């Protein structure tokens, strides 16, 4: 311990480590009524780090070649020691990341944390949501199974409905008329080189915005004097008399991370095939479309919407409108009230929207 203290003193003399710790950890005060939902951001950062780590490990053996990709994934799953564990952590983790991200967004919606002055936090978070869906979609193709091949065929084909540029866009996305070896090369590059860097950068921007604006006070059981934000000059939202981030809230972050790991590892060890249909175990065959090909659970509502509307353009437009509405919500819902029970119109729309999304997903699953 004495040695550690001497090392810490040595570093402190040079970079003022104690000052940083006081400012960013022990002296970083959070609202006293902060709740566990605020820890989902930390959980998401852990998931992202684990995805990067398991992704790097998979890249050691994965071969991004249409002739060899499926065999290399089978090799990782069946022959390498603990290869199944690394791959399942990556596959389950990608689904978990979307699920936790949705929960994080729902808590932000319910607590009105997207409102002024945090519009940019919401927009950067929504951008992350879109990017995570993109990285999941591009990663889905890489095993080169029947499931990944045909799910990508359907997903990329959706762009066809866009007037004028649609057919060119589909060809550009695929690197050819149909999904094939050039698509694998493109999706692999985007999945491992482009999107992780962009996501890391947007996470950085998201955290920067959080630090500059200050963390919001939950609208429930507020112990602080409410001081409405005034749009005339920049001001950081302080929480005098609040709890320190370290150790108090760091412990809550750790608790949430442990709860997440319990759920995540339960799926990895006890329900490993929950996310795989039989088509995931058959190599891609460009001449044989399997029956009942379905996308990942978080795209089921989009899939069902496209099936309901007779015109693909109409289906896509409705989805685009819904996404745009959500992305711009802080600029549409401008009332300062944040308590969900005091926003009946919002609450009715939010619950209705969630039920509609769940309903469409279930319908899509069983259709």
């Amino acid at each position, binding site marked *: 311990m004495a040695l550690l203290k001497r090392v810490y003193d040595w570093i402190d003399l040079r970079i003022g480590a104690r000052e940083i710790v006081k400012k960013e950890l022990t002296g970083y005060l959070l609202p006293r009524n902060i709740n566990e939902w605020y820890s989902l951001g930390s959980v998401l950062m852990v998931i992202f780090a684990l995805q990067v780590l398991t992704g790097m490990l998979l890249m050691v053996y994965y071969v991004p070649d249409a002739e060899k990709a499926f065999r290399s994934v089978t090799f990782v799953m069946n022959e390498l*020691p603990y290869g199944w*564990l*690394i791959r399942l952590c990556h596959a389950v983790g990608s689904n978990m990341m979307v699920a936790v991200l949705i929960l994080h967004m729902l808590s932000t919606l319910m607590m009105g944390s997207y409102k002024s002055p945090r519009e940019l936090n919401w927009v950067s978070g929504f951008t992350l949501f879109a990017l995570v869906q993109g990285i999941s979609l591009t990663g889905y193709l890489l095993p080169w199974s029947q499931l990944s091949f045909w799910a990508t065929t359907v997903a990329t084909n959706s762009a066809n409905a866009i007037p004028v540029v649609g057919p060119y866009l589909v060809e550009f996305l695929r690197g050819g008329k149909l999904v094939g070896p050039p698509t694998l090369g493109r999706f692999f590059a985007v999945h491992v080189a482009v999107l992780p860097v962009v996501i890391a950068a947007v996470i950085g921007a998201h955290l920067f915005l959080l630090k500059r604006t200050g963390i919001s006070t939950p609208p429930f059981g507020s112990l602080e004097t409410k001081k409405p934000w005034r749009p005339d000059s920049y001001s950081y939202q302080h929480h005098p008399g609040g709890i320190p981030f370290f150790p108090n809230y760091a412990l809550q972050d750790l608790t949430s991370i442990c709860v997440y790991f319990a759920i995540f590892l339960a799926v990895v060890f006890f329900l490993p095939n929950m996310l795989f249909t039989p088509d995931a175990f058959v190599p891609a065959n460009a001449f044989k479309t399997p029956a009942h090909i379905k996308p990942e659970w978080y795209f089921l509502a989009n899939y069902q919407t496209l099936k309901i509307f007779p015109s693909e353009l109409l289906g896509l437009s409705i989805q685009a409108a819904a996404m745009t509405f959500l992305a711009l919500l802080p600029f549409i819902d401008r009332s300062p009230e944040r308590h969900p029970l005091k926003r009946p119109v919002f609450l009715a729309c939010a619950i209705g929207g969630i039920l509609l999304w769940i309903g469409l997903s279930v319908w899509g699953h069983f259709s």
Partner: protein
Amino acid sequence: MENDGRRKFLGVCLAGATTVAVAAAAYPVLQYLAPRSGAQGADKLVFATTDIPEGEAKFFEYAGAAAVLVKTKSGNIAALSAVCTHLGCIVQWEKDKQDFICPCHGGLYSAEGAVTGGPPPKPLAKIPVSVAEGKITVG
């Protein structure tokens, strides 16, 4: 004092649990990355004697490393590691001089693998070889 003792005990428990968790996560990762045993190729390789003309050498992979089978003009057959003992480059057969040269730093070896010049500290490792019924068995 009682609180200090409890704090220390919890600290030790937390450090122990963290160590176990890190070890539990590191073990599969190390196993996953470790070179695979049994991926070194066959223990024995068989060539027809007609595969190698007199005065020539045949390079092949043996036990996961480069090896060479050489038949001298006098008809002697030797199987050697083709990895130079200096810095690990692969030696080349010089048919006209009937010796091996390492292109990296000019190490020279005889057809039997003995060092005849340059920096190599040791001769090329010998691999067991036998000839019977028109077949050369290496290993």
